[in-house]
């Protein structure tokens, strides 16, 4: 139906769900979602695969649903990864300008970038992304393109997102039995931000927090540059687990109470409130609504505090707003809570510039998988037709 070049597929093996999305890149450069497939996930904890067989089976299911919806066959995917092992750091690479007239040439830029990229990189870590931030020529900072300028010293700042090789390898393993190829491996935090933020928002300074089931990812943009990103292995599962332990109930009940009665903070209406859960014996069991909320509030509060702590002074750059995506952003009152902790305007994030018939387009849970599509679309535009060498793609500078 469609030519293969036009199709882009995103796959996320998440803690709550395995999700595949198929999109086509329209000739005008837009992105149309033509199929989404989702299946509950059982083989993932805290963003990382713990049961490979389950994960593989669920990938097959999710991809199958998406294929049926799209009427297209998936041959390769942009695979989203997350987990506590993923680290975002900003490195600086310095290169002295050797040419006699001190003109900065393209080779100087490449050298400075590669110094920055490979700095402090232990053997077992893989580079997932290296994203150029800006250059410093002698003392002048925030130079976007230094080629042709004069200077003695060129310094490149690069945001490098690395992951532990073996743990990234586990995600790849989940696909080895499925005949599905991998175009690229993408950090979920980055993909969520890509679909949530417009260029203007990135320029004004925005923070995207993806409150997933197993992990919480964040990415901070300012002046259209990715300033920081990272992941905390704390998510909605932790909220559920806290509730289960605090109210002494099972995880399944805790999850359903969280969805039905949960909220980001204790308000006057729920003080002394009771939740009645019908039981098989006839007499319903009663739980305290206030306790439920208090447990949830403590965890969510801590999660935002940890994000703020990770960002440190950089947080002030997010004056343009904080955007919450992921399943956790459905929690009632979450924006108010985040606003209280971060002291910044907080909004719910929505995937932007997507077209398609699917009802999932507006769902915050799908931000990262749609972000994979956006990442993929960008890559397809950059990719020279016919041969797609990942190595060559890595060498591309990627600055959106």
């Amino acid at each position, binding site marked *: 139906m469609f030519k293969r070049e036009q199709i882009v597929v995103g796959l996320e093996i998440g803690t709550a769900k395995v999700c595949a999305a198929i999109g086509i890149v329209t000739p005008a450069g837009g992105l149309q979602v033509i199929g989404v497939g989702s299946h509950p996930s059982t083989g993932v*904890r*805290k963003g990382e695969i*713990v049961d490979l067989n389950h994960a593989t089976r669920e990938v097959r299911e999710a991809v199958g649903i998406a294929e049926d919806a799209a009427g297209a066959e998936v041959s390769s995917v942009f695979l989203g990864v997350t987990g*506590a092992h993923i680290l975002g750091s900003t490195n600086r690479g310095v290169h002295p300008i050797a040419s006699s007239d001190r003109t900065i040439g393209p080779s100087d830029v490449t050298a400075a970038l590669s110094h920055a990229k490979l700095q402090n990189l232990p053997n077992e870590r893989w580079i997932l992304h290296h994203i150029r931030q800006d250059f410093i020529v002698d003392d002048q900072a925030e130079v976007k393109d230094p080629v042709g300028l004069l200077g003695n010293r060129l310094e490149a700042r690069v945001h490098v997102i690395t992951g532990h090789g073996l743990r990234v390898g586990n995600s790849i393993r989940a696909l080895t039995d499925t005949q599905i190829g991998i175009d690229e491996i993408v950090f979920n935090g980055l993909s969520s931000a890509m679909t949530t933020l417009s260029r203007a928002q990135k320029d004004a300074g925005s923070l995207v927090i993806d409150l997933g089931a197993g992990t919480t990812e964040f990415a901070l943009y300012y002046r259209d540059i990715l300033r920081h990103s990272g992941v*905390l*292995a*704390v998510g909605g*599962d*932790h909220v*559920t*687990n*806290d509730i*289960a*332990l*605090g109210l002494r109930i099972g*995880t399944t009940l805790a999850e359903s109470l969280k969805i039905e009665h949960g909220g980001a903070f204790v308000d006057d209406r729920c003080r002394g409130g009771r939740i009645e859960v019908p039981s098989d014996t006839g007499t319903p069991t009663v739980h*305290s609504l206030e*306790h439920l909320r*208090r*447990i949830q509030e*403590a*965890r969510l*509060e*801590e999660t935002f505090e*940890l994000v703020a702590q990770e960002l440190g002074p950089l947080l002030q750059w997010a004056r343009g707003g904080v955007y919450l995506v992921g399943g956790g952003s459905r929690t009632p009152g979450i924006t108010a809570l985040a606003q209280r902790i971060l002291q910044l305007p907080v909004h719910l994030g929505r995937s932007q510039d997507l077209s398609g018939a699917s009802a999932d387009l507006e769902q915050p849970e799908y931000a990262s998988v749609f972000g994979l599509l956006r990442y993929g679309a960008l890559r397809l535009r950059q990719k020279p037709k016919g041969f797609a060498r990942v190595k060559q793609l890595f060498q591309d500078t990627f600055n959106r």
Partner: protein
Amino acid sequence: MEPTSALTARYRILAVGRAGAAAVQPLLSAGFIDVEFAVLDTDPEALAQSPITHRVHFGEAATFGLGTGSDPARGRAAAESDLERLRPLFAGARLIFIVAGLGGGTGSGATPVLARLAREAGALTLGVATLPFDCEGRQRAQHAREALTAFRSSADAVICVPKQRVLAQFKEQERPALTEVLAAANDLSGQSIRGLIQLLTRPGLMPLDFAHLERLLRGRHAESCFATVETTGPQRTRDAVEQLLRHPFLDRGQALSEADAVLLSLAAGPEVSFTEIDHVFTHLQNVCERATVITGTSIDSALAGRLVVTVIASRNPTNAPSAIPLSSEAHSTAPQAPPLPGSRPDSNAALGPDLMSAPTLPGVPGTAPLGGHTRDDSSSVPVFAGSGSLASPSLATVANPTVGALTKKKIKPTQSLLNFDTLPNRGRFEGLPATVYQGEDLDIPTYARRGIALN
């Protein structure tokens, strides 16, 4: 290998490992009735040195007959590999003491397994565990702590004898001899068993008291502390109470006020008077108002002029700090003994001289027998048995609610050690690598880490 020959007595004392064998040694000559001893070890050489005739060498397959080399995992494997051989040791017993030194291999690893077997055989299972000295190193302390937790959960109750606290008794001596300290530590674990067995085996007492002991301890998985004092002279009852209330093993009396099950046992010579017994029990029961108390008294002509009071206090492991000393300072730095926690003004007034203002009389002031007491000279006569059998209504077994508030005030505000057993566990993240962020395990619920109360 052949199954071990069965034991037949109703009360059995199983010494596990080298430390266990050493701890029961002083009991061998006590002449108990209906009590059998057995010594269990993985090391045949250690076993051969024991004077106990019933020796059980186990775990030969797991350790190749070489002992465990201080590895609790090996001790455990040794016991697990010989379950069927060990079972006859437990069949038909009513009460089994499992005596071991924790921190090494055999004692730490095998005792929880043995306690499980004992409970499976239907016996009331009491552990007596010595914990290592601080200077024996962190690893041993860690092993001991883990073993104690396992031991406690498989036995009905475990009496702990932290050897480090034995040292507190030698504070006044500048250079206590090593052998003396070790002997004292062994003696203490022996005394706790002796106290209990004497309470149970003296004729006439036993049936009622075993039932009570069982009710007190069965299935509680409690950690108990134990203390015994012996006094003589005209002030002997006051001395006994006073010494107990500042006994290092009872946290200077705090263990009693926090306990929820207490066993008081008093043994004295035939000259003992009712007022003396009344004095001791009233005062001690006033301290442990919240606890279920069972008391026992026996008269033994061999104890002429002496008074021996034994206290075993169990606290609920979920809400009390562990008795395991993490450092010795906590108990040796206090220069003066704190006020006695158990002196209610009304009871003091009723009993004449105020206990709190009484001058401290350290040591034993002579052994002059009390005059004027002429009593039947039968060798061993039970006087009291059962809970709350004393006349005073305030000695009822369970504290009434009005005095509960008073007791609360009496608990000293001490900084206790954080007991990690009491934190909720990690639930569905159990077994996964912990998410540690700046030293905090984020998998443990936030409300628990931040101390947010849920009530």
